């Protein structure tokens, strides 16, 4: 048993006032702890991270919830939250508990450069602001103006990371092929702020969001296409409360509509067994399950097989909630389970639709030395292969 700790109702009230309005709804049944992806992996963190206990500590304002290792372990995958019998907004509670620490200026050391770069450069990847639009080189993409239908908002990861830039380029090609009226404002944009808000830095999130909202509203943006489900989440769920109201969709949603309307065709055959890893922020957080599957199945020759944990039960890659910057020992990474599952299903390609997932799955595939049997691809890349054949 744990040692007895001091109950602090003041701390509880402080956590609740930071946004954890549903904290007291929790009845301590423990379903969350059992459905948590940490139960699927071994290791020290899996031993200590208990999301039910964290809610309890918050309810009682018990010291201990601020243990850095535990507090910043949650990947915000939403598995617990979607199944919670009491509809407790568990992720919001985690965010608020983190905020009580981060708001006081204390951030885990591995996240300090992330926040620093967001402050200085408007992106978490230490990329210079003037290089944000470098990914556009060689592509004929117009700037967004009043006459353009959609703003294409590209995730910071795909602006700066060379591997991830391919995603942005592929999405552009597909949109152009389907004749979509779109433009970009990449050079002037800042990070959507989704992840820093999950990390608990409300102030920094507000700064980023306000700058984007000012930009979007000034340019007359009404509809936004995102490359990342995390940006999709932020624009849809976080921005309206700050005055940013747009019609937002993930590129897969738009493409599947265009496919049905006959405006997008995927002519080239790819005779491969392909499986789809549902990104948490596309699936559980935004309820988009069918669009990516419809697109994959439209590719001639592609055979879609499902992973063991799929759709609303999809297993997180562990890239959310700021965990993309966490050092996790090999053998304890969720992504490894996804790669092993895809190999078990005899898939040739594991496709996903999120730049964070791509990073995590790429790492896992390389770490497990499965690159010779399994290819990790972002969906836009896979679809582009069909375009180019």
């Amino acid at each position, binding site marked *: *048993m*744990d040692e007895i700790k001091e109950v602090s109702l003041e701390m509880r009230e402080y956590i609740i006032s930071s946004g954890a309005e549903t904290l007291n709804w929790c*009845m*301590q*049944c*423990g*379903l969350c*702890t*059992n*459905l948590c992806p940490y*139960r699927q992996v071994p290791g020290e963190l899996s031993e200590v991270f*208990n999301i*039910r*206990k964290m809610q309890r500590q918050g309810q009682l304002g018990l010291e201990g919830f601020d243990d850095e290792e535990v507090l910043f372990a949650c990947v915000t995958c939403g598995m617990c939250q*979607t*199944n*919670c*019998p*009491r*509809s407790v907004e568990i992720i919001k509670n985690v965010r608020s508990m983190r905020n009580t620490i981060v708001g006081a200026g204390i951030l885990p050391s591995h996240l300090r450069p992330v926040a620093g770069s967001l402050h200085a450069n408007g992106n978490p990847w230490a990329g210079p602001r003037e290089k944000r639009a470098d990914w556009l080189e060689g592509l004929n993409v117009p700037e967004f103006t009043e006459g353009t239908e959609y703003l294409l908002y590209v995730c910071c990861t795909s602006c700066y990371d060379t591997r991830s830039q391919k995603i942005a380029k592929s999405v552009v090609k597909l949109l152009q092929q389907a004749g979509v009226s779109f433009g970009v404002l990449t050079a002037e944009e800042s990070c959507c702020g989704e992840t820093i808000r999950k990390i608990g830095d409300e102030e920094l999130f507000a700064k980023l969001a306000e700058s984007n909202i000012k930009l979007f509203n000034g340019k007359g943006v009404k509809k936004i296409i995102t490359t990342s489900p995390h940006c999709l989440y932020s624009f849809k769920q976080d921005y309206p409360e700050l005055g940013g109201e747009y019609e937002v969709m993930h590129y897969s949603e738009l493409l599947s509509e265009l496919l049905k309307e006959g405006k997008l065709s995927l002519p080239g055959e790819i005779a491969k067994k392909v499986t789809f890893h549902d990104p948490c922020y596309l699936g559980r957080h935004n309820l988009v399950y069918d669009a990516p599957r419809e697109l994959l199945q439209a590719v001639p020759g592609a055979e879609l097989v499902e992973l063991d944990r799929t759709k*609303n*039960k999809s297993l997180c890659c562990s890239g959310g909630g700021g965990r993309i910057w966490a050092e996790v020992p090999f053998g304890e990474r969720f992504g490894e389970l996804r790669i092993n599952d895809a190999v078990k299903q005899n898939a040739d390609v594991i496709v996903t639709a999120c730049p964070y997932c791509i990073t995590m799955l790429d790492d896992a595939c390389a770490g497990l030395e499965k690159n010779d049997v399994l290819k990790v691809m972002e969906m836009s890349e896979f679809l582009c292969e069909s375009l180019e054949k």
Partner: protein
Amino acid sequence: MAHKSILVVGGGVSGLTAAIEASEAGSEVYLVEQKSYLGGRVAQMNQYFPKLCPPNCGLEINFKRIKQNPRIKFFTLSEIEKIDGVEGDYTVTVKSNPRYVNHNCTACGKCTEACPAERANEFNYGMGKTKAIYNAHEFAFPMKYVIDGSACLGAECGKCVAACEYGAIELDMSAKSFNLNVGAIVWATGWEPYDAKKVDYYGFGRHQNVITNVMMERLAASNGPTAGKILRPSDGKEVKTIAFVQCAGSRDENHLPYCSGVCCMASLKQATYVKSASPDAKVYMFYIDVRAMGKHEDFYTKVQDDINMIKGKVGEISEDPETKDLIVQVENQLTGEIMKETVDMVVLATGMAPSTSSALDTISYDEDGFIVSQPGIFGAGCAKKPLDVSSSVKDSTSAALKAIQSTVRR
């Protein structure tokens, strides 16, 4: 001028009670039941809690009261199509579906022997099969065979007709509709077990040895698919370790937001089935809270000493692909330990959802689908809220009184 007669919809224990009580007070009663027999879900139970007696004797007494009472007219295989009118003056359209078997049937069973077609045994919740012509169960009232039209091969086959010595089978029987004029309606359509497949992390429908509490009643019943032996579905092995998983969909905003109030007692009762069949069996009951209300506390305290009670809502249930054993994962809320227990079989304590299959415009329902009473139309039993049997009986008696008042108000 108000009609003096009363319509009771649903022939389970609630409908039977309302019909009998009203008729014994002098009212003319029509009783309409969708299934081929009266008795409803109670007929599928092995034992009542807390007395652990079989429900058949109570049902038999009710059937005897119906048989002796000329004021009750009952229709099986029938459903309500339309209700017009107001309190005191309703015109109700009843559709009577074909049994394909007439009054000559003696339940000799020759037809079943001859029948080549099969159907899932719904009385046993899909465990095992019956022929397309079958006896619903051995205590069925009325004791007449019935043909499942969707399974029957039709007149081209006709083997049952040839086998029947009494001319009891009419394959060309068809559905008929007729009107009833009544002054009041008691709506007692009962409940359905919540669909356990919807609680997808428990694996019902994927893992063979995950069953539901209503199925457990059939496994324990001597007229059930295993003749009362508690054998698990995958290999017929006697169950030596078992986990009862409480609140499988109940008290859950994603499923049934309410507590059905009977499942804790049902699982404690079913634990006694396992323990009396094999005293050395290891029984787990995983719960959020045990709700054994009122005088049921005694039963709870008595049974809990014999079994392992673990406070904690079960998370995932996984299956060993070789043995088909089940691994139940749960966080023990008293110790904080994450347990992984391997068991032979899991019983999901699924809650009660109202039967709303025959939803009509004239009937009002609450946000969970339970009937809301209105002048002239009264809910009774589990169509109104989740109840145990004895509470349903009391509720239905009071509904009968309200219905009688509607017939004499003007």
